[in-house]
């Protein structure tokens, strides 16, 4: 049984200007101890997916349909009390900006001990000891001093370490990291990521790493989901995504990474067009207007998610076109495409 199973999740924001389908049919599984990366640009729905799991969506947002199962137990529709038992306890989360994510009028120690006291049976002094233990674990020096300090007295990197300590204090099974390094300096970024990998080895929790930075994904993640406009574009192992991308968007992302070995004369290859306006979604594939390989089919209908290899999923008509050419399409009931053997007829890299 998977640790976390998300099936066909739909989360929308009902704003005065219209309905934004932030998450529009997303499915994935998370196994114990694995690191899953969710990649996408701003507005792709990756953060909203995470917030939907914990059900900490803000006001006009709501889970519309779908299923989220934690160790087999359904979370969608669960009572607020059941969710509270999970938050900070079975699933921990750290956010992008540690400065605003910590309450400015309470000490670090106060906020650290809060979750501990809530979810475990420890008394005050035991909770204090555990908090110190966590601070040491995340590499903060002089933990006793830090406990009494306020958020604004710490540096950015330290604050994020505190956030990590807070999220992991109750030894959750899953740690969700929502762009944890975006707001930090580059050198600190590396430190934090290293810390997270370290803790993952020590504590064995699964990690969902949400980011727009492919470099982070490459370093840390076992599996990767690429999201665009609320839908899953492609899903697979890190190796598959990086070495055998099967979606035009993924290919675009990979192509846009400057090559460190180049002689500096090559032009950068960005993805054409502008990011999508979620209030005015086109019919068909959301990426089509920006896609170099766009076909008439792409404009008409959104491609379905299809297995293109073992554990490798993609939603792109290009695969279907190639599959038709190479006669590599396997269909199931009612003519629905089940699998496309993308290796057939192609030269391997």
């Amino acid at each position, binding site marked *: 049984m998977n640790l976390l199973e998300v099936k066909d999740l739909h989360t929308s924001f009902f704003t005065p200007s219209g309905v934004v389908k932030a998450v529009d049919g997303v499915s994935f599984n998370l196994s114990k101890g694995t690191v899953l990366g969710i990649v996408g640009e701003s507005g792709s729905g990756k953060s909203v997916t995470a917030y939907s799991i*914990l059900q*900490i969506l*803000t*006001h006009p947002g709501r889970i519309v349909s779908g299923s989220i199962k934690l160790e087999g137990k359904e979370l969608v529709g669960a009572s*607020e009390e059941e*969710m*509270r*038992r*999970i*938050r*900070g*306890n079975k699933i*921990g*989360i750290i*956010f992008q*900006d540690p400065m*605003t*994510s*910590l*309450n*400015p*009028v*309470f000490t670090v120690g106060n906020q650290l001990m*809060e*979750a501990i006291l*809530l*979810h475990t049976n420890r008394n005050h002094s035991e909770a204090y000891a555990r908090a110190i233990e966590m601070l040491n674990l995340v590499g903060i020096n002089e933990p006793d001093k830090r406990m009494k300090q*306020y958020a*604004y007295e710490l540096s950015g990197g330290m604050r994020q370490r505190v*956030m990590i300590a*807070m999220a992991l204090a109750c030894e959750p099974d899953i740690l969700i990291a929502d762009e944890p390094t975006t707001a930090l300096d580059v050198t600190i970024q590396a430190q934090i990521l290293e810390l997270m990998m370290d803790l993952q080895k020590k504590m064995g929790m699964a990690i969902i790493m949400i980011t727009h930075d492919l470099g982070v994904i490459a370093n840390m993640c076992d599996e990767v989901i690429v999201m665009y406009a609320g839908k899953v574009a492609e899903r697979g192992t890190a190796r598959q995504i990086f070495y055998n991308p099967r979606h035009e968007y993924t290919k675009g992302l990979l192509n846009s990474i400057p090559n460190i070995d180049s002689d500096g004369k090559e032009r950068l290859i960005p993805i054409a067009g502008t990011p999508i306006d979620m209030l005015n979604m086109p019919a068909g594939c959301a990426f089509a207007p920006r896609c170099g390989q766009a076909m008439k089919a792409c404009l008409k209908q959104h491609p379905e998610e299809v297995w293109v290899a073992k554990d490798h999923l993609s939603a792109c008509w290009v695969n279907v076109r190639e599959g038709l050419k190479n006669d590599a399409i396997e269909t199931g009931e009612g003519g629905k495409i089940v699998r496309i053997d993308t290796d057939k007829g192609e030269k391997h890299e």
Partner: protein
Amino acid sequence: MGARFLMYTLKRLGMAILTIFLVIMITFFTMHAIPSSPFSSEKAKSNATIAALEAKYGFDKPVGIQFLNYLKDVAVLDFGLSTAWVGSTVFGLIKSGFYYSAMIGLSAALIAIILGIILGAIAALTRGKWPDKIVQVVTTALVSVPSFVMATVLLLVISLQLKWLPSMGNQPGGMVLPIISLSLYPMAYITRLERSSMLDVLGQDYIRTARSKGLRRGKIIFKHALKNALSPVLTYAGPMLAYILTGSMVVENIFSVPGLGRLFVNSMLRTDYMMVMGVTIFLGILIVMMNFLTDVLYKVMDPRIDLR
């Protein structure tokens, strides 16, 4: 924190003292710019009598000297003698009047603060639903009614027509209507302030963090949200005091309460300029000191404020 905080407090105190000095100066010179004498209005006095009276009260000396003398006196709380209530000292009258005004004013302030915060928080938490809508409509209406209208309407309806409460301050239960009249506007104002502050806080990231740790809704509100939402309300404390003090002038008038406000109005009508000066300066000092206290308190509550 200690040393910088002390500097800040001292700076603010210095500012307060400077302001008080300015208030005294402005008051003094404004009153002395009035052409007529405080004695000229009453039953026809001969010029000689007026001159004698003025000499007795020290009004015949040059203005500059008078001002210095006045400053010296004020420093020891001697505001001079009243000309309308012969025989009483200005300060003595102020003291007895202040007792009533303080009682009414403090009660009104307390009601306004407590109810305002509670209603504002409720409105923020039930955003968009009917409790919020009601609160918004009612507070908008209350904030559009001046104190004297409110007091007079209350007098009319509650006291004279429905006869639920007495119309005069010195009767038992007579303090209720004055207190309510004075508390309604600040309460409405604080409610709106608190509501918007609370909404602002509830949208902050650290509330999301608190939620993600699994805290109960009540705890999130009372612990994390409220403390942050309170500070804007504190900044209103100074203006609220000013409102209550000036509002008391009409409210005490309407309900015949022997307080400072009514004293001020009467001394105006009877051209008792020593009295007018004394009350103005007294109230001015109160307001300035209140502003000073709230500045310092604000700093204590939120250590991030710029220490300039």
